[in-house]
Structure formats: C-alpha cells, structure tokens
C-alpha cells in the first residue's frame, strides 16, 4: 500500500454513516417522492422517518401474520408506504412498559394512525393492548391543536378480564404515543365513539383530551431502534436506540443460538428526564459463523439486581 492509499483510508476511517436502509427501501418502493394525504384538514407528509431514526422492519417476508401485502411476484415492483413509529407493550422490571418499534406500513392498508396499534408487533416479545377493529379513524387537527381518535364503538369502555389496571393505563398511552409520533407533535388526544367524547376506555377516564405521560413513567428504559428484528448483517453492524440508564451507560451483548455471549460492550448515552439516544461502535462480526444471533441492549444496574434487575430489549439478527 502506498502512502496516499494509507492517507485516504485514514482520512475517512472514523466516518460512521447512519443506517439509512429503511429510508432507502421506503423510497425504492415508491413511484414518486413525497406522498401527501389529507387528514383532518391538515396536510401530512407520511414519508417522514420518525425522529430521524431510520430502522427497518422486514416488510414483505417471513411473517405469515404480517398485515403487509406481498409485493408482486416478480419482486421488481413493491408497494408504496411509509415507516412509522408504533408503540407496543412489553415486560420490564418496572412492570409493563412501552417499547417503540418502527413499522413499514404500505399505503394500500389505508390505516388510521390509531389503527397502527392493532397490527401485531414484529418483535415477538411485544404485544398490543388493542384488538383488531378497535379503531375507526384518527384525525390530526393542527390549527386547533388536537388529535381525535375514534373508536369503532363503545364496546371498549370497560377493562376486559385479564387486563390489569396498569396495562389499561399503558394501553391508553400506547395510542397517545403512537398517534403523537405520527403527528410529529405532542398534541393532546381526544378519544371518541360515535362522534362524541367517550367517558372511559378500559375504565380509564377519557372525557377530556389527554396528554402523554412522562417518558420515564411509561416507556421501557431501553429500546433498540437498529438493528430491526430479522436484519441480515454482513461483516459488521452498529446498533442504536434510546435509553435512560444509570450514568447513561447502555451495556450490550451479542449472543449466539446457545445463549453464549460472543460479543459485548457498552454504549454511552446521557442521563436526563427523558430517554436519550445511544449508539454502539461498529460491532465486527466478520469472524463469527453464519447463523442467528440475539442482540441485547440493557440498562445499567448498579444495584446488582435489587431493583428488579436491568430492563432489556432484544433483536434477532442473521449473520451471513
């Protein structure tokens, strides 16, 4: 290698590009850039990548339960759609909390943002608190600063058997967080049925517009944005997400199919009154045998498990 070769490699060695696979797939699947839809009198861009974090959920493969339609057989044409942040319930040491997942939603599904939560999550560790058909529509009215979520009927006024009060409260937050992510603004959310505000949903008072509860009260304290569930990795990858962890430290592990830790490290975020971004360095997997691995991100737990142990979020990835 001559000296200019060394210098040029060195000059960009620490350039770590952000992951844009979702944005690329999203645009690759679109005939035109920027589709605009009318919602509640306001023009919304549905092509926004929420919070600037691009993540892929594998849209059209391997999941029978996935609501996403198959592309045409040739594979050369795919459906238009958008990437949306959807919140789901999952288990943490603090009880059920919301995890954020980025979903590919084809335009042809014509879902209202509140209906996103009716779609099953990609990550098998999560679940939704809402049955299919729960919602009719949702409107974002920017001028008057209100999001209206319409339930299909009054059948969900009361908490069903088997749902705890904590889960019911979280179910409401699941909708609020998801439609606010869609709106890109923390507007209050009014639940309605049959054209009027509904007094309770799952026994939670909803007659007035509701604001989202603080993140640290409802969100899982660590959440992975990248890699997406099922991501195929060659050579190396980096992971990122959001967390609120002791001193901002987010320990991570890569485990093989036997559960053995084959890589580990920690990413550094900050500690504030909301979740803040973390990102790992590049994780080199070039010398790992091809196969399925689990990436685990954790909160730091200086108590050694006394407080119920760390919150974890996981993603299954395939190393080629």
């Amino acid at each position, binding site marked *: 290698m001559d000296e200019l070769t060394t210098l040029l490699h*060195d000059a960009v060695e*620490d350039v770590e*590009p952000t992951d844009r*696979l979702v*944005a690329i*797939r999203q*645009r*690759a699947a679109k005939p035109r850039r920027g589709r605009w839809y009318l919602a509640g009198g306001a023009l919304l861009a549905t092509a926004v990548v929420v919070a600037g974090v691009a993540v892929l959920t594998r849209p059209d493969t391997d999941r029978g339960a996935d609501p996403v339609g198959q592309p045409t057989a040739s594979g050369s044409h795919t459906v238009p759609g958008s990437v949306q942040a959807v919140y789901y319930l999952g288990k943490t040491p603090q009880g059920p909390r919301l995890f954020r997942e980025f979903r590919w939603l084809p335009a042809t599904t014509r879902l209202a943002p509140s209906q996103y939560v009716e779609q099953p999550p990609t990550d098998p560790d999560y679940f939704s608190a809402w049955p299919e058909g729960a919602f009719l529509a949702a409107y974002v009215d920017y001028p008057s600063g209100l999001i209206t979520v319409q339930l299909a009927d009054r059948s969900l006024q009361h908490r069903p058997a088997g749902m705890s009060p904590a889960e019911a409260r979280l179910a409401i937050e699941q909708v609020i967080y998801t439609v606010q992510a869609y709106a890109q603004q923390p507007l209050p959310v009014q639940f309605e049925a049959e054209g009027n505000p509904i007094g309770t949903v799952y026994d939670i008072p909803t007659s007035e517009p509701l604001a989202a509860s603080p993140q640290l009260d409802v969100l899982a304290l660590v959440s992975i944005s990248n890699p997406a569930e099922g991501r195929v*990795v060659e050579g190396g990858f980096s992971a990122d997400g959001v967390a609120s962890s002791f001193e901002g430290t987010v320990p991570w592990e890569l485990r093989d199919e036997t559960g053995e830790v084959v890589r580990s490290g920690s990413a550094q975020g900050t500690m504030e009154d909301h979740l803040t971004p973390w990102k790992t360095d590049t994780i080199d997997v070039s010398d790992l045998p091809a196969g399925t691995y689990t990436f685990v991100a954790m909160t730091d737990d200086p108590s050694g498990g006394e407080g119920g142990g760390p919150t974890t979020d996981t993603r299954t990835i395939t190393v*080629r």
Partner: protein
Amino acid sequence: MTRETSLDADTALEQLYAAHWRRLVRLAVLLLRDQGAAEEVVQDAFVAMHGRWRSLRDPDKALAYLRQSVVNRSRSALRHRGVVERYVARQRPAADLVEPADVSTLAHDRRTAVLEALRALPTRQREVLALRHYLELSEAEIAETLGISRGSVKAHASRGSAALRELLAGHLDGGDL
C-alpha cells in the same frame, strides 16, 4: 444463499447495502467532504440502483453502477452547493466529521488536512485519486466508472498525486515521495 440469477431487487438491495453502504459513504466523503451530503448521495444511488435492477440483474454490475452513480451525483452535488456551503460555514466554526474527543488532535488535523487537500484539487483528479487509493480500483475500472480513457486516468492520477503530495507535504513522513 440465493443464486445470483434469482436475486430480486429487494434482496439485492439489502445485500449490497450490507456489503457496501459504509464504503461508498466514505468514498463520497472523500469527494464531497460533508458526511450528511455524502449519505444523501449514496442513498440516492441505492434507490436508483433498485429501480434499475431489472437491467442490472447482477451484483457486480450493480456495484459498478453504484460506484458510477455515487461519483456522478457527488459531482453534481458539488456544483449546486456553493451558496449553502458559505451559509453553513458561517454557522459552524469547523467541520464536524470527527469527534475530537475520540481521536488525538494530531490524527484529527491530519484527516482534516487530507480532506481539505482533496477539495483543493480539480474534480477529475480528486475522483481518480479516490477511486484509485480508496476503492483501489484498477486503471481500467476507473476509466469505466468515469467514462474516460485509460490514458486520461493515468494523466489525472499523476497530476493529482503530485498536487496532493505537495499539499500534504507536512503530513507525509519520509522524503521518498
């Protein structure tokens, strides 16, 4: 592993992205300097490649297309950005390509100097040097990527190297240039 002939556009996109995204962004940083702009350019190239997959159908051809597309798009991005750049320069004291906290000031200075020096070169010379010394392409491959003759590649390479070495004299150790 999927056979190449049966690769569909989406799978090809995913595989090429996994294998080449970082390298192509770094190539674009050498050409454009700004990382955000570099990512935009390479993202556009991947989208275009996906759209053209029916006629490419082969990962090697697709990679050649991506390289060409990144170089061409970088060139046109440079042409259109004079105004923006002056504005940004006023907002931001220094380029934020690297985190000075992680690297020694010396390495940081050297990297900045290399990128600055590349910027100072004529476009063709910069392109030839980046393809030769970063992607390590052969003369023939560079000629094909840029759509110029091998003789021109040689000429740009030799003039470009000389100019770059002169600009970077302080950062090249040893006098055997």
